[in-house]
């Protein structure tokens, strides 16, 4: 087998009926685990209800079926769990089902030597975005007039939100509900990676039509490893594959192009709101005046992984102050903005609804134009700024680290002496 585009589904009839889109991903994960090609699988499973995704690390094939079905609410970063699992069990081989943001994070972590690409098998998903669980329930109650607890499925298809409950199906164009404040997360609306081709294979519904539309998955193979695994799974009798036809391939690229156009437009609009120069600084200061220093942005950020955080140095950020001094946010910007992949986790978790992700992404966009570093992508230059690493400091500023610390910890009047030294 050599093609790059396929239609596929689970060879097991039971899985094909119960899982989403013919259960190809479920079948593939089963194949990976049962043939011991990986030690564990990181995926999401349904928690208390349709709106409650929970990350799980599965090691036995029996548990895989619990993860079947797609979830459009709540953006959980599986990359975090992959990193957690690898740190706890060095050398573990993991297969992970990832969205665009997960894939980009994983690549940033690989570049930082935290993960090893050879130990990972990445199954990408086409992703048009996710929704806030609580807002979605309000949307279903107030706009659709349905009981959120009796809804069977909530998903995006071809730019429309589709809500199904028993025999009733309601559809709403995405732009419409976005205008009413019930739309996708802001970061998703700016996303430039609807098809994460960094992965070994990418699966999804884009490019399906006719009898396939609910019963199959469109697979795009991106690496040789992906192709090997896929044919292995077919040989083991876990999945069935047929080559995709030209109509499907074209339809798929049309959807992708449409998604990218919308994101591009959203990016422009949202970045324009942040202003420039003093205007932007004032806006940042005003918004961050609500900060309660809960550190959720830092904990949520998959790239905020320094062992000794600069925001905890009393000479940079005085402890115990609410709202914290602007330096707190400046440190976060200077450490993350160059590599920000716009996963939006920081904004999701901000207790005071500060648009942190928009700030970071707007800065990243400008830095990318200036320095040409592409965060989250395998190609191109290595990471530019390894902030907070002693060697880097020495490289740029020679042997002045201690001097700098003394400068900041002394009163202004004393700084004259240091200059003279």
């Amino acid at each position, binding site marked *: 087998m050599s093609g790059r585009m396929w239609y596929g589904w689970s060879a097991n009839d039971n899985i094909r009926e119960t899982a989403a889109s013919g259960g190809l991903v479920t079948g593939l994960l089963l194949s990976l685990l049962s043939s011991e090609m990986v030690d564990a699988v990181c995926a999401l499973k349904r928690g208390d209800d349709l709106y409650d995704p929970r990350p799980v690390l599965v090691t036995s094939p029996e548990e895989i079926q619990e993860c079947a079905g797609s979830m459009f609410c709540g953006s959980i970063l599986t990359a975090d769990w992959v990193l957690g699992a690898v740190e706890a069990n060095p050398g573990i081989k993991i297969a992970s089902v990832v969205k665009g943001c997960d894939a980009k994070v994983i690549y940033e972590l690989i570049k930082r030597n935290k993960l090893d690409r050879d130990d990972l098998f990445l199954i990408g998903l086409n992703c048009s975005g996710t929704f806030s669980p609580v807002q979605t329930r309000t949307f279903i109650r107030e706009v659709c007039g349905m009981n959120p607890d009796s809804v069977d499925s909530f998903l995006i298809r071809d730019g429309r939100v589709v809500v199904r409950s028993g025999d009733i199906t309601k559809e709403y164009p995405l732009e419409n509900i976005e205008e009413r404040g019930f739309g996708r997360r802001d970061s998703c609306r700016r996303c430039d990676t609807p098809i994460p081709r960094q992965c070994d294979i990418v699966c999804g519904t884009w490019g399906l039509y006719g009898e396939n539309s609910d019963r199959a998955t469109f697979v795009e193979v991106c690496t040789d490893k992906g192709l090997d695994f896929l044919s292995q799974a077919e040989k083991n009798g876990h999945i069935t594959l047929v080559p995709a036809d030209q109509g499907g391939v074209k339809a798929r690229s049309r959807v992708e192009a449409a998604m990218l156009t919308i994101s591009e437009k959203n990016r422009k609009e949202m970045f324009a709101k942040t202003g420039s120069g003093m205007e932007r600084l004032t806006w940042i200061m005003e918004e961050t005046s609500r900060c309660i220093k809960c550190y959720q942005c830092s904990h949520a950020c998959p790239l905020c992984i320094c062992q000794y955080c600069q925001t905890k140095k009393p000479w940079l950020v005085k402890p115990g102050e609410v709202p914290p001094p602007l330096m707190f946010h400046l440190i976060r910007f200077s450490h993350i903005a160059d590599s920000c992949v716009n996963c939006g986790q920081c904004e999701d978790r901000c*207790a005071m609804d500060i648009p942190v992700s928009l700030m970071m992404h707007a800065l990243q966009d400008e830095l990318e134009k200036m320095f040409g570093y592409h965060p989250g992508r395998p190609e191109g230059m290595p990471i530019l700024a390894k902030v907070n690493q002693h060697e880097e400091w020495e490289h740029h500023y020679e042997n002045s680290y201690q001097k700098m610390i003394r400068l900041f910890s002394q009163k202004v009047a004393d700084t004259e002496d240091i200059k003279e030294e």
Partner: protein
Amino acid sequence: MLNQIPTICPYCGTGCSVNLIVQDGKIIGTTPNIRSPVNEGKLCPKGTYCHQFVHSMDRLKKPLIRKGGVFIETDWETAYHLIAKKLKECNAGEVGVLASARCSNEDNYALMKFARGVLKTNNLDHCARLCHEATMTGLSLSFGNGAMTNSIPDIGKSDCIFCLGSNTFEQHPLIGRQIVRAQSSGGKFIYADPRYTPTAIQADLFLQFYSGSDVAVLNCIMGEIIRNGWENKEFISLRTREYDSLKKTVLQTKYTPGEVSFLTGVSEEDLLRAAEWIGTADKCTVLYAMGLSHLSGGISNVRAIANLMMLTGNIGRPGTGVNALRGQNNVQGACDMGCIPNFFPGYQPVTDSTFHRKIGRIWNFPDGIAPARTGLDINQMFRKAGMKHDNIKAMVLVGENPLVTEPDQNMVEHAVKNLEFLVVSDIFFTKTCEYAHVVLPAACYAEKDGTVTNTERRVQRLCKAVDPPGIAKPDWQIITELACLMGYSDQFPYKDPSDIFREITTVCEPYKGMTFEQVSLPDGICWPCPSPDHPGTAILYTDRFYHPDGKGVFCPVEWKIPAELPDSSYPFRLTSGRVIWHWHTGTMTRRSKNLNDEVQEAYIEVHPADAEKVRVADGDMIRVRSRKGQLSCKVRIVPDIKEGMIFMPSLFDAALSRLTGAPSAGPEVSEYRPICVAVEPLPGGD
């Protein structure tokens, strides 16, 4: 392998849902629960680090008994037998029981049943007496029930939020977020406080007044609303009574903006603007907390707020209401469970003979239950424990640390020393434990199942994530085993918290329609929930108040000069409050590294002008004297506070309670603020 367990944060009354990340039997971190309607996947610093104290080395792991003046570790059997023997020696009038607003509903219910059924006493109370007693009494008189009227997500829908006596962004940060939401959709935010707090930064209108002048401000606003005809006449005539008496009071000359401005230090314009915004808003809501109810005029303050909201017809609709923000994760639940001397669960008076008989029948104690007579409250218990004759001889404390939290530390210290027998159940060896005869190791929030009820009356599920340390047990289990040993195994057949919850639904009217399975779902259920198919009640009083005639009652209150006013020997007014990093006595938060790194010692905030007067500099040690006592502390000079006022965080072992005192008369709310103090530099303080 990694696992995540959703449960409820153990700190303030907001009741945020948090996932504990568990690896190999240890909690290694938290994530916010995105599915919770309360916090929508967001947490404050305390919630973020709520796991850090759980595995502290100094958790109590085994029961301790005092032998020859020292504590020795023992097993449960020995401890139970000793407690049973000692408690049996006392008659019903000689024992007192304190429940805890930090324990689950099941813990509190079991303890309440133990006090009333096994010990036959109504001497049962908990620390809500010290904070929100005024809310319960005041709102019950006005509306017929003492709970917060609306739900947390509802606050974000308001057009005008009036917040006083609460530094919401620090004390209930995830309720503070609702203020942000309201503002982002065009709502206005009015904030009244003596300090320029993080909440004040976000205010559209900030009224910086002297603490203790709340009633004057509220009456003035009401007067202006009536003078301008902004009152809701239809609401007043259809749904309330006694309006004329209110009108007479608030229209007095002494409540005109001119007079009140002089009295409170708020400009006339600002008072007028506040009245206009509140009077003309379609949906206005009030948020208040202990700054209003935590002092001896608390009941008046609460009634004045109720008056304002009835006057403008802001009750019973989304985005309106009187929202009392409760300070502890289960203070609402502890009151619901009847851990108060005058009420059975569901606020049925113990003196009501019909209900008394009903409870007696349900519980079926062979030798009856406590008589239909109101018991002693927490202040009376300690006062009586300190007496020479006819005193309280034994006390059972579950999760309470009165030596630090009671306003008059000297009185409590004398009382507990005078006790013949004191049992304390806690998760750490607190200051109160030092005076105990038996100390029992309890499981903390992460180590037990059960339910808790947050400030908006939402009953939510606590889930066990890890095992308790050593042989520690959940409180409901300790109480159940003790009751069984004392011969009441038929009345305490509980094997699991769900057994207790089932019994709660038969006894406690507002919980009647709930099941343990339903409250375990992410949305929980707000009481009242009268039948199994009922979705719960997010907004109270949509069509009638809970008084028999369905009407709300106006009660005019007059502003009284605070019990203490500054004079030449005590020139400063002291106010207190929380900081975002710590919670109450700090037993849990000070053992959490990230929180302790932010603030690790007590301090006093002084205005720069005042600091100059008393000749102190930032970081100096100072001595603060009140009429009741004195303490020394580090000073922080901040311009955020009103001149003439000083502020101290109400935490850190027994600092503040040295300055405050018990109420002067009757079973009233305790006076924590405002009190007057003198400040002087401490010689030789480094």
